[in-house]
């Protein structure tokens, strides 16, 4: 989830929580206030009735309406002055439903002309129905306002966040495009926010340091590969000279062979290092390559080895792939992938090639792997049994794949090895 969405999500969740609590409180407060107002109006009404009662003695019965019932009862005996306010449930004769009522019950005594005291009870009940309807409407209006507020504030928040974080996304973009291997400089957009400018400065300084170190390292690798070349050439030409001399015994030849093998390995290693350091700087130009023809020409070219090792080669072309690579890189990729499948194969083994629009898979038989598959792409990881391989082939593949934003995956199941390139 990105920064903006996360901010908005937190904002929405928090606002809903606050508004829910606020809504509840408003509801509670409004009910309390309304009940108090109702009871005050009941008291006022009762006071009017009581005043009349006290002035005129007995008064006629009121007409009562559902929702507002006034009941006056008279008693033989005088009653003590008392007032009770409470809730009750009364059946509405029209709707046949029980409704909540607030009632006020006042008892007291009046004296008639003879000076005889008798008691009375005034009960005024008023239905909550209207109040409840009012409250429900109020809550609805409040919620509507809340939702509108959440949306408007949310949009505003989103707009502000986007504006504030814009330089940050600019920095992110520049950072992800930054590759010290291409000897580019990190270009960061200037910002009006101090913190981002500080971040820019820190990152620029860091990238300059990385570039410098990388450049030095690259120079060192180039110097080393250049310096190693001369002694290797001397060894190889001396080997060639020695080889031509007559009367070499079998042990002599064995020594010579091992000298040459070692020198050849060193030379190949040196060139691979050179290749890797150059591939970094090489402009990652994108072409389109017909992978099928690259694979076929490789297989045709290697037919003699495939025959002599008795390998069965099968291929399955699901769809014609177009790979965003230049010819020479595609060639290096295919020859390393298929070359490995041949080199690490066994007599009478098999190679299966599968091509789809998005994948190139090579499955081959071979020896059981003596290490973890994840270590496969590390430089200098090589199997014990194959002295000659410099262990750099797969890391070259990885380098090319990385530069061109593709993916490569290796897996193994006992003696079957699968290498898949996703493009």
């Amino acid at each position, binding site marked *: 989830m990105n920064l903006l969405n996360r901010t908005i999500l937190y904002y929405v969740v928090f606002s809903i929580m606050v508004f829910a609590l606020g809504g509840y409180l408003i509801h509670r407060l409004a009910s309390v206030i309304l009940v108090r107002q109702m009871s005050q109006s009941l008291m006022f009404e009762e006071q009017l009735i009581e005043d009349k009662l006290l002035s005129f003695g007995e008064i006629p019965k009121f007409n009562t309406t559902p929702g507002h019932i006034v009941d006056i009862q008279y008693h033989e005996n005088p009653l003590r002055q008392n007032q009770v306010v409470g809730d009750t449930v009364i059946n509405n004769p029209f709707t046949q439903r029980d409704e909540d009522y607030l009632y006020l019950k006042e008892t007291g005594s009046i004296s008639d002309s003879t000076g005889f005291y008798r008691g009375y009870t005034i009960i005024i009940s008023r239905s909550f129905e209207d109040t409840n309807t009012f409250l429900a409407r109020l809550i609805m209006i409040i919620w509507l306002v809340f939702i509108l507020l959440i949306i408007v504030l949310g949009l505003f928040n989103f707009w502000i966040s986007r504006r504030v974080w814009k330089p940050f996304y600019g920095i992110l973009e520049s950072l992800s495009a930054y590759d010290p291997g291409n000897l580019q400089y990190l270009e960061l957009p200037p910002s009006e926010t101090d913190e981002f400018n500080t971040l820019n400065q820190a990152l620029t300084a860091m990238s300059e340091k990385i570039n410098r170190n990388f450049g030095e390292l690259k120079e060192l690798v180039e110097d080393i590969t250049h310096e190693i*070349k001369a002694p290797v*050439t001397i060894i190889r*030409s001396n080997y060639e000279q020695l*080889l*031509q001399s007559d009367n070499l015994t*079998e042990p002599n*030849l*064995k020594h*010579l*062979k091992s000298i*040459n093998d070692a020198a*050849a390995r060193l*030379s*190949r290693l040196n*060139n691979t290092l*050179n*290749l890797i350091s*150059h591939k970094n700087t090489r402009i990652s130009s994108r*072409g389109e390559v017909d992978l099928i023809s690259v694979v076929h020409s*490789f297989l045709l*070219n*290697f037919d*003699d*080895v495939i*025959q*002599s*090792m008795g390998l069965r080669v099968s291929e399955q072309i699901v769809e014609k792939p177009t790979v965003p690579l*230049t*010819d*020479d890189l595609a060639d290096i990729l295919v*020859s*390393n992938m298929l*070359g*490995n499948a*041949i*080199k690490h194969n066994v007599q009478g083994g098999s190679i299966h090639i599968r091509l789809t629009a998005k994948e190139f898979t090579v499955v081959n038989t071979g020896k059981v792997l003596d290490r973890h598959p994840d270590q496969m792409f590390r430089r200098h990881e090589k199997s014990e049994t*194959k002295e*000659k*391989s410099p262990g750099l*082939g797969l890391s070259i593949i990885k380098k090319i794949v990385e530069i061109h934003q593709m993916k490569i995956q290796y897996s193994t199941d006992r003696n079957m090895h699968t290498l898949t390139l996703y493009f």
Partner: protein
Amino acid sequence: MKILLVEDDAELGKTLSGFMENVNSTCEHVQSISDALMKVDLYEYDIALIDRVLPDGDGLEVIKELKNKGAKTGIIIISAMKDTEDKVTGLNTGADDYLPKPFHFSELNARIFSLFRRLHFDGNKSFHFKEISIYPEKFECSINGRDLKLTRKEYDLLLFLLSNKNRVLNKELIATHIWGDNYDLVDSFDFVYNHVKNLRKKIKERGGSDYIKTIYGIGYKFESN
């Protein structure tokens, strides 16, 4: 024969190497000086065709490296630079020939064969060694005047062995020379043995002697005595 083509134009390079492979050559195509230097360091070539204007410098660097190494490679410059001065510089650096672009493939082909003849067969059109005769332009060979039918690889093998008489050639060198540079990817060179065996058999059947000597663990040598 084996050719190194240093040409930065991908299309032209592809066409040229396809053409060369059709006329019985192994052709390795690279597009930059750094790749060419790597090739020159690792492998041997009969002929190098070098363009001068390359993305990472002047093709003369490759010629200098070949000369430093003491390689016996014949060098032809193919370049759009037509000035006499440029040609002289190129030839003085060590090139054997200079072919200005644009050129006809047939002319390039003729020059390649002519250079190859000069380098290996004293300029003769056919080459004879005791009972064996080779006609490089026709890709034919004969023993005691009788036609010797060889496969393409066997023919390449015989030509390579003969043009390197009395020199021990290791199996890896033979493999990369005849089958291409990619062949150093493999570890087992048994297929070289099979082809040598077949070649020996065919020469013997035609009544030729066996001049190919096996050098234990290393490779082969064509012995002239």
